[in-house]
C-alpha cells in the first residue's frame, strides 16, 4: 500500500491548519457564508438537510486496518457512531459539528487520509476495481496508476476550476467492476504485443444525461498516460461549457463536438505537453509500484474450509455468494455485505468497522477495500481461515449472504440526508430487501443488480442497474420511475425506462411483479435477469408492471 511521504504529510498539515483558521474565522463572524462555502467545499464539508456532512476520500477504495480503525474512531467520537460508504469509494459522516471538523481532518491526516477534492469542479477521488491486485482475471493491479493520478490531480494548479466535476476510474481487468464507462475518463489496463498500456475512454457519465464512455485511444503507452490524460483534461478545461451547468460535463463536450474532433484536439495538446514530461512521473510510478507489491501468499491445505463447506449450509451459502476467485492458489476474495436486509445500504457502525479492521489484520494481509457497490472487501484471505472469519463476521452481524443478489442494493442517501434529493431512497431499499428476504426468493432469482437514486444526479447509478429506481418529486409527492436492462460492466448499457412512475408505497410491489415476470419467462435458472431482458425485451416486464385493467381504467 502507498505510504505517505514527508511531502504528502507536510502538504496535508498545511492544508488542515489553513482550514482550521478558516473555520475559526467563520465562527467568529469574520468570514461570511458566501466567502466560507467554497473553502469548506474544497475540504469536503457539505451542508445537507439536517446537518453538515464530511465526505472523506478513500483513494481507489483501499484501506489498511489502521485507517479503518481511525474511521471508526472518528465516527464514534465526532459523529453518530457510524459512517456511510458511497458509490465513489468515499465515506461520509452525516452529523459533524462545524467546530469539530478541523479535529476530524487532523485525525484523518494521522493515517494519511483527507477530504480534499471530494467536492467542487475538480478531479475527484480516483476510483478503481475493488478486487484490484487480487482478481484472477486481472492483467495488472490498477492502483499504482490510480495513486499516480491521485498525486497528479491533487491540488493540480490548472485543474482546480474545471467547467464541472471530473471523475476518473481505473480497472486492470477485462471484466469491468469499476464502471469505467460511466466516468468522465475510464482507464483499462491492456496488453498489446507483450507491452502493457492503457485503453482510455472519455465522456461517460450518468446524471441528467446518461452517456456511455467512448474509446478515445485504444492503446496509450505506459509512459504516455499522464501527459495524455493531462491533454484530455486540459482540452476539456478550454472547450467545456461554462454557460450551462447541465451541459458542462465532458460527456456533453464529447457529444457536441464529436469524439473525432476531441481526439484531434487532445492529440495536438498531447504533442505540446509530452516534451514537458521528462520521465519523473515514470520514476514516481516505479516507486509507487514497489509499494503495491502483492503480499507473500502462503501455501497451506484448505481441508478446514472444505469440511465446513460440506457440513454447514449457512457457511456454504455465504461462500457461494460472497467469495470471488483469487489469483493465488488457495485464496479467496471476501465481500462483506453492508446490506443486511432492512439495514441502510453502505452503513457500518464504528464497532463493525473495528471488527473488519481486526479481521483484515488477522486473516487478510492487513488490506480492506470499499466497493462502489457499498460493501467492504477483504481481498486476500486464505481459504483455511474462512470458517473462523465467517464466525466472527456472524457475531458482528456482518455475515449477510447476498452479494450480487437483489437485496445487495446500491442506494444513495436520498431525501433522508441529501439537500439535492427529490425523494427518499434508503427506505425504498430497506423495504425491497425485506420483501425478498421474506419471500426467500433471492437465491433462486440469482444475480440481479438493483440501484436506487433519490434524484436525477444518479449517485445511486440507477441507469446502469439491471433494475433502476429513480425517486422524483411529482407535484409534491414522491414518485419512482423504473428502468430495466441497465448494465455497469464492460457491456455497459443505460436502462430502458418503463411507463409512468409509482407512488412510494407501490414500489416494492412493482419490483416484485418485475421479478416474478422474470421467473415466469426465463429459460431456466441459468438464464439471468439481464439475459432474459436481452432475449425478450421490455414487453413482458411492462405487461407485469402495468396490468391491462389499470391501463384501460
Amino acid at each position, binding site marked *: 500500500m502507498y505510504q505517505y511521504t514527508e511531502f504528502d504529510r507536510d502538504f496535508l498539515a498545511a492544508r488542515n491548519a489553513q482550514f482550521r483558521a478558516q473555520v475559526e474565522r467563520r465562527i467568529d463572524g469574520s468570514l461570511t457564508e458566501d466567502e466560507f462555502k467554497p473553502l469548506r467545499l474544497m475540504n469536503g464539508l457539505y451542508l445537507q*438537510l439536517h446537518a453538515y456532512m464530511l465526505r472523506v476520500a478513500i483513494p481507489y477504495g483501499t484501506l489498511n486496518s489502521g485507517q479503518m480503525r481511525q474511521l471508526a474512531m472518528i465516527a464514534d467520537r465526532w459523529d453518530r457512531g457510524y459512517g456511510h460508504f458511497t458509490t465513489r469509494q468515499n465515506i461520509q459522516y452525516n452529523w*459533524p459539528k*462545524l467546530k469539530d471538523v478541523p479535529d476530524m481532518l487532523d485525525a484523518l491526516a494521522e493515517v494519511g487520509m483527507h477530504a480534499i477534492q471530494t467536492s467542487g469542479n475538480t478531479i475527484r477521488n480516483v476510483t478503481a476495481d475493488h478486487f484490484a491486485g487480487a482478481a484472477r482475471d486481472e492483467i495488472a493491479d490498477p492502483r499504482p496508476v490510480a495513486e499516480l493520478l491521485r498525486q497528479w490531480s491533487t491540488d493540480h494548479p490548472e485543474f482546480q476550476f474545471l467547467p464541472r466535476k471530473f471523475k476518473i476510474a481505473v480497472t486492470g481487468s477485462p471484466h469491468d467492476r469499476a464502471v469505467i464507462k460511466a466516468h468522465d475518463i475510464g482507464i483499462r489496463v491492456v496488453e498489446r504485443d507483450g507491452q502493457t498500456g492503457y485503453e482510455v475512454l472519455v465522456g461517460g457519465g450518468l446524471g441528467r444525461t446518461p452517456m456511455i464512455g467512448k474509446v478515445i485511444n485504444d492503446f496509450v503507452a505506459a509512459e504516455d498516460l499522464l501527459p495524455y490524460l493531462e491533454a484530455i483534461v486540459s482540452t476539456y478545461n478550454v472547450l467545456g461549457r461554462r454557460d450551462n451547468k447541465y451541459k458542462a460535463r465532458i460527456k456533453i463536450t464529447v457529444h457536441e463536438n464529436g469524439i473525432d474532433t476531441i481526439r484531434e484536439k487532445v492529440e495536438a495538446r498531447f504533442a505540446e505537453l509530452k516534451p514537458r514530461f521528462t520521465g519523473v512521473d515514470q520514476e514516481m510510478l516505479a516507486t509507487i509500484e514497489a509499494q503495491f507489491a502483492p503480499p507473500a501468499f502462503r501455501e497451506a491445505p484448505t481441508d478446514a474450509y472444505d469440511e465446513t463447506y460440506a457440513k454447514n449450509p449457512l457457511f456454504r451459502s455465504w461462500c457461494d455468494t460472497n467469495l470471488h476467485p483469487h489469483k493465488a492458489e488457495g485464496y479467496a476474495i471476501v465481500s462483506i455485505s453492508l446490506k443486511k436486509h432492512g439495514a441502510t445500504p453502505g452503513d457500518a457502525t464504528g464497532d463493525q468497522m473495528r471488527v473488519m479492521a481486526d479481521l483484515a489484520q488477522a486473516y487478510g494481509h492487513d488490506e480492506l477495500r470499499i466497493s462502489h457497490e457499498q460493501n467492504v472487501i477483504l481481498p486476500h484471505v486464505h481459504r483455511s481461515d474462512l470458517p473462523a472469519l465467517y464466525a466472527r463476521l456472524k457475531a458482528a452481524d456482518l455475515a449477510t449472504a447476498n452479494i450480487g443478489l437483489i437485496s445487495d442494493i446500491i442506494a444513495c442517501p436520498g431525501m*433522508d440526508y441529501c439537500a439535492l434529493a427529490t425523494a427518499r431512497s*434508503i427506505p425504498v431499499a430497506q423495504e425491497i430487501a425485506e420483501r425478498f428476504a421474506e419471500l426467500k426468493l433471492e437465491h433462486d432469482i440469482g444475480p440481479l443488480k438493483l440501484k436506487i437514486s433519490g434524484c436525477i444526479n444518479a449517485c445511486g447509478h440507477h441507469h446502469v442497474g439491471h433494475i433502476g429506481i429513480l425517486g422524483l*418529486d411529482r407535484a409534491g409527492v414522491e414518485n419512482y420511475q423504473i428502468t430495466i436492462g441497465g448494465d455497469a460492466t464492460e457491456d455497459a448499457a443505460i436502462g430502458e425506462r418503463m411507463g409512468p412512475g409509482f407512488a412510494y408505497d407501490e414500489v416494492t410491489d412493482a419490483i416484485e411483479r418485475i421479478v416474478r415476470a422474470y421467473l415466469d419467462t426465463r429459460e431456466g435458472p441459468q438464464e439471468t435477469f439481464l439475459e432474459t431482458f436481452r432475449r425478450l425485451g421490455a414487453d413482458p416486464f411492462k405487461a407485469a408492471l402495468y396490468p391491462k385493467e389499470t391501463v384501460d381504467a
Partner: protein
Amino acid sequence: MPRAFTPKVITANALLEGDVVYLTRDDRWTRDLKEAELLTDEAHADLRLIEAERRVSEVVGAYLAEMKPGPDGPEPTHFREDFRRTGPSNYFHGKQEERA
C-alpha cells in the same frame, strides 16, 4: 393575475450544528417548527427574510418555506420540509431524537 401569497416560515441551518432552525416572532432561532412565526403577508415576509439573512454568524442559507397553519402552529405542505422538521427516516437521529 399575480398568485395569492401562501403562508411561509423562515428557516435555515444553524451555523455551528448545521441543524434546521426556524425564526420566531421575537427573533429567536428555534429548533421547533411549532414556535416559528407564520408569515402571511408578502411584504412582511420579504422584510423578515432580509433581517434573517443578515444574521450570518448564527445561520446559513435562510429561505422562506411554504407552510400551512395547524392547531399547534405551522405545518409543512411539502414532504421535504416535513423531513427537515423531523429528521431522517432510517435512524432515530436529529430532531425526533432531541424531542423524545
